[in-house]
Structures are given as C-alpha cells and as structure tokens.
C-alpha cells in the first residue's frame, strides 16, 4: 500500500492507465447516452422523464462514492501523515461536489414535472444537501490555512465527522417514508428495476467513475506541481543553499516518506 502511495509511483502507474481510461470513458459515455436517450423504454408512469434517472442516480452514487473516498483519504492522512492521501482527498472534493450538485439539480428538474415541486425538505433531499455543504466546507477549510499541513488536518477531521452523513443519505428513504422513492438497484434481494433500464444506469455509472479517475489524476498532478512550486519558492527566497540539497520539508517528502515507509 505504502509502495503505491509514493507520488512518483502513483504518477507512473496512473499515467500508464490514463489513455486506456480516457478511451473507455468516451466509449462508455457514448454507449450510455445512446441507451439512456434512445435505446431504453419510457416508464409506464413517468414517461420520458425517467431518462433523467440515468444522470441523476449515477451522479448521486458518485457523490457518495467520492465522499467515502475523501473520508478514507482523510483518515489515512491523519493516521500516516501521508501527503498523497491528503492530495487525493483535496483532488476528490471538487469532483464529489460537482456530482452532488448535479444530483440536486437533476433531482429538482425531475421533481417539478413528477412531484409537482422543485424541492421538498424530504429526508433524502435534505441529507444530500448536507453532503454538498460538507464538500464545500471541506474545500473552504483546507484552503483557509497558510500552512497546508494544518489545513489538511482540519479538513480530514471534517471529512471524517461528516462521513456519518453517508449512511444517512443511503438509508434515509427507508428510515423516513417521505416523497423520494426507495432504492431499486442496491437493495436486499437484488434490483427491482428492469434490465433495459438497469443497463444504461450502470453504464453511465461506470462512465462517471472513469471521469472521476481522469479528473482525480489530473488534479493530483496539479496539486503536486503547486506544492513543488511552493517549496521551490520558499527555498529560493529563504535558503541560500542550492535547491537540490533536499532539506526542505515539502521538497523532500518523496524521499522522506520512503525512509518513513521502509522502517
């Protein structure tokens, strides 16, 4: 685990995977969109509005999935002080926030024609809105400190405490019997949804997962660049010794962490 967590190994591995994931994501998106918009039947009650589900539900899954990933990275960052875990959590937050916001917006666009309202304070909708606020709070918090270390500590703590909201979102439709319909895919006893609708749903979910992977890798690279820029600027400003001496904390975290992992 620690071996893969070395930034250089992460970059090499994900760099090799990148073209394949991009190709796969493009294919999945095209197939998913075709099935969602043309190749799937209309719902016997909801007519064509059921097509909103193929965006709404995968986006909601991704919103939760990204949050779990972010909270796990936060835990790893707190326990092992691993910079890459913190970087992954930071890179995940905007993707998760985007998917969560899309869930709320597409849900609204689905609710208006089918429920007759854009919004109700239903348990599922409310817990999903809290999820969005947790993402936004995390993003604001990690960037609120001059010292990135302190920002990541505060952010990781927030992400972990907020993880309690994930099961609440998932089971809200069972615990509180309100307007939002209960689960029809990830439920005990198997999916109750028709295969012709399950296929585009799952394909879109995999396409979104591919998109998450792509943006995650790009944002990790971005964050690594920014940390290196910060380290070089600090060493260039305050340190008269050559930069390559590697005695600066952030510049040397790659080697430094190796030493830490091998003991």
């Amino acid at each position: 685990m620690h071996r893969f967590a070395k930034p250089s190994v992460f970059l090499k591995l994900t760099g090799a995977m990148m073209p394949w994931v991009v190709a796969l994501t493009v294919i999945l998106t095209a197939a998913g969109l075709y099935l969602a918009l043309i190749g799937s039947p209309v719902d016997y009650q909801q007519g064509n509005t059921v097509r909103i589900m193929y965006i709404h539900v995968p986006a909601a899954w991704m919103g939760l999935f990204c949050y779990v990933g972010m909270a796990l990275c936060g835990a790893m960052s707190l326990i092992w002080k691993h910079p890459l875990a913190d970087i992954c959590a930071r890179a995940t937050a905007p993707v998760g926030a985007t998917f969560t916001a899309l869930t709320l917006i597409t849900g609204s666009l689905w609710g208006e024609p089918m429920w007759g309202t854009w919004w109700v304070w239903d348990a599922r909708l409310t817990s999903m809105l809290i999820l969005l606020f947790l993402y936004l709070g995390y993003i604001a918090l990690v960037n609120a400190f001059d010292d990135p270390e302190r920002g990541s500590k505060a952010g990781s703590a927030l992400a972990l405490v907020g993880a309690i909201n994930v099961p609440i979102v998932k089971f809200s439709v069972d615990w509180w019997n309100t307007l939002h319909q209960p689960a029809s895919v990830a439920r005990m006893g198997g999916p109750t949804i028709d295969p012709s609708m399950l296929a585009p749903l799952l394909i879109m979910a995999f396409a979104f997962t591919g998109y998450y992977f792509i943006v995650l890798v790009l944002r990790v690279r971005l964050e690594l660049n920014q940390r290196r820029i910060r380290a070089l600027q600090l060493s260039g400003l305050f340190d008269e010794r050559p930069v390559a001496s590697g005695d600066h904390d952030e510049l040397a975290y790659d080697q430094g962490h190796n030493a830490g992992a091998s003991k």
Partner: protein
Amino acid sequence: MNEFFSMGGYGSYIWASYGLAALAMIILLVMTLRGLRQSQTELDQLETVLKARRPRRTRTTDQSPTS
C-alpha cells in the same frame, strides 16, 4: 426528430438535466486542465531560473580562491 427532442412534452426538463450535467463536468475538466498547464509552466520557469542560478554560485565559489 422533433418527437425525440420534445420527449413527450418533458424535453425541457430532460435536456436541461443532460445539458447541465455535461456543462458542469466539462467546466471542471477544463478548469483542471488549465490549472495543470499553468502550474507546469510556472514550475518549469522556476526550475530553469533556479538551475541557472546554481552553476553561477559554484563558479563564484570556484573563482574565490583565485581572486
């Protein structure tokens, strides 16, 4: 074709959902790519500046005994 776009009268809701999803995901991707490109340029500039500074320093230390 018109039938396809009207989506049984729900076209505006459905196309708004798909359109906004595509827009948000593309914006995030483009912002990420732009940030990555900017940071790469900045990093390259910084590295060339610092690299150019280093041999000069070694040269001055080399020259110091002779002067």
